[in-house]
């Protein structure tokens, strides 16, 4: 069996048994990254660093000092700052930015022994659902429709991470989820994507998009791998004032025990108008699978404000983004376009440095925060957000988890939906509510569309109850038995 085909848990066992070395595993992934270059999943490859870290890992293991993730090659979304390695947020405005510091989450991964492969492509500043807004060009989904060779989007914004994991160019990856940016690309690429509870993984050193909504989390091939990755990434961080001062449970141990008696709610408002019948059918199938395994299905759960989540999000997220992105002024780091005056330098730099979608959102955010509109838009959206969070609190008085589709469609072609921002925003219809409420949610590949593309189902749970969410997701994964293969996978030839 090829090293690339192993899951993270299997690779960990192989390394522990000395079936192969971290160096051999890293070499296989460095070659896989190169083979997968046509997907454009990576902005920066760091093969020398990967091999050096692998050698250190082998040395630790030889001394009997192996750590939980020792020798596991992972890719990092290029929104996480990495010391000494170009960090772009897929934006022109961060040209040449090499952080002198490391994000807490990646620091945690390296401390656990993981090996860094490189930095993955994304939508610019994580704003997008298709990975087509990147200054470094679109990412291709390793999947193609049956009988149709057009390249498809991997979803976004963590599209490079999703494509790399699905194409076996990384064993696992980090992502961030602000409106669905981990779960939607995971669904489009046939992998597992976990958005933890807000505050579970530190945001320190992650380029800020919308601070009250940004959730770092793992993207993996299996639910067990997501549990392992989350255990290494999570933890309290004094440098993030919203980081939860809570102990991190053993998520992998929590996968055992089954789901007998677990109460799973089916939120009726997630039946969107015009939802494809195959997605509705897959959702019903998912509920049936969980029921067969002993869960109690509660099919009249209501989250009445669901349809207002997306418009509330498209006020709150741009408002926070317009504030966060004010720091990119051309003075202290990144791109500088010279001007006649300092004011002119700011305006020229920001016009040249931001792409169309980022500019659109900064302008919307500036408008809804401006004098005279703040109450009508921004405070109104925050009040609706409170109602959305309350809907979930009331639902979780009756059920332990919710089951819903991850996305209202399968992956689409590059260029489709790009002329209407709102058509693009609708991708996040089912993922945005859990971001607004800060709840843990995981997407699991559950089946194929009629034209052969992966479709995900998501499990949403109570705050800080990732353990139950992962256990339900593992049951779903076992029942679905998703073993379909994308059109492109490194090491297949």
């Amino acid at each position, binding site marked *: 069996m090829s090293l690339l085909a192993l899951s993270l848990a299997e690779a960990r066992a192989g390394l522990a048994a000395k079936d192969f070395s971290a160096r051999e595993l890293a070499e296989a992934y460095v070659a896989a990254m190169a083979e997968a270059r046509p997907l454009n999943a990576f902005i920066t490859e760091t093969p020398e660093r990967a091999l050096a870290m692998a050698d250190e890992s082998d040395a630790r293991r030889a001394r009997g000092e192996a750590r939980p993730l020792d020798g596991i090659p992972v890719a990092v979304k290029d929104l996480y700052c990495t010391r000494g390695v170009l960090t772009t947020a897929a934006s022109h405005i961060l040209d040449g930015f090499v952080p002198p510091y490391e994000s807490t989450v990646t620091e945690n991964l390296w401390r656990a022994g993981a090996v860094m492969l490189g930095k993955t492509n994304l939508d610019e500043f994580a704003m997008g659902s298709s990975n087509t807004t990147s200054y470094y060009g679109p990412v291709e989904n390793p999947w193609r429709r049956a009988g149709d060779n057009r390249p498809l989007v991997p979803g976004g914004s963590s599209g490079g991470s999703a494509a790399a994991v699905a194409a076996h160019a990384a064993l696992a990856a980090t992502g961030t989820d602000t409106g669905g940016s981990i779960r939607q690309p995971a669904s489009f690429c046939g992998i597992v994507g976990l958005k933890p509870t807000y505050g579970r993984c530190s945001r320190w050193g992650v380029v800020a998009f919308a601070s009250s909504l940004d959730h770092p989390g793992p993207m993996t091939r299996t639910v067990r791998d997501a549990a392992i990755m989350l255990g290494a990434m999570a933890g309290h961080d004094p440098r993030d004032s*919203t980081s939860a001062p809570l102990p991190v449970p053993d998520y992998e141990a929590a996968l055992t025990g089954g789901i007998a008696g677990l109460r799973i709610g089916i939120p009726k408002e997630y039946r969107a108008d015009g939802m494809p019948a195959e997605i509705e059918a897959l959702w019903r199938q998912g509920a049936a699978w969980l029921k067969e395994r002993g869960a109690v299905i509660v099919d009249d759960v209501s989250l009445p404000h669901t349809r207002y989540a997306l418009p509330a999000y498209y006020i709150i997220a741009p408002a926070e983004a317009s504030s966060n992105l004010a720091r990119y002024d051309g003075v202290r780091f990144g791109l500088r376009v010279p001007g006649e005056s300092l004011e002119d330098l700011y*305006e020229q730099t920001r016009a040249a440095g931001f792409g169309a979608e980022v500019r659109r959102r900064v302008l919307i955010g500036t408008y809804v925060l401006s004098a005279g509109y703040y109450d009508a838009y921004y405070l109104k959206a925050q009040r609706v957000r409170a109602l959305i969070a309350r809907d979930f609190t009331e639902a979780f008085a009756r059920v332990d988890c919710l089951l819903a589709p991850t996305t209202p469609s399968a992956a689409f072609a590059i260029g489709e939906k790009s002329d209407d921002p709102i058509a693009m925003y609708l991708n996040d219809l089912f993922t945005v509510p859990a971001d607004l409420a*800060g709840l843990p949610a995981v997407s699991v590949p559950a089946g194929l569309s009629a034209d052969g593309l992966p479709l995900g189902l998501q499990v949403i749970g109570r705050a800080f109850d990732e353990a139950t969410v992962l256990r339900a997701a593992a049951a779903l994964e076992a029942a679905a038995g998703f073993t379909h293969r994308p059109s492109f996978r490194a090491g297949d030839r």
Partner: protein
Amino acid sequence: MALDKATVARIATLARIRLSPAELEPLAGELSHILDWVEQLNEVATDGVAPLASVADIALPMRDDAVTDGNCRDAVLGNAPAAAKGFYTVPKVVE
């Protein structure tokens, strides 16, 4: 809410993003389209509902007012597009 070109120009100035005159019209259309769509929030009764700014259910942590970082001028300036003698350099703003 339909935004006119003058309003878009004013927002762009607030946001410090230079727009060419030709960009104002299409942006006014796009932004108005988005604002029309978000206005469905007015259907929701929110009287007496407190705005939710963050779901982090924790008190803002306090720490001693002590220096925890610093002495890293060269690392900070390492990313500067232009610097001289330990300072950022910017265009002359005072004649």
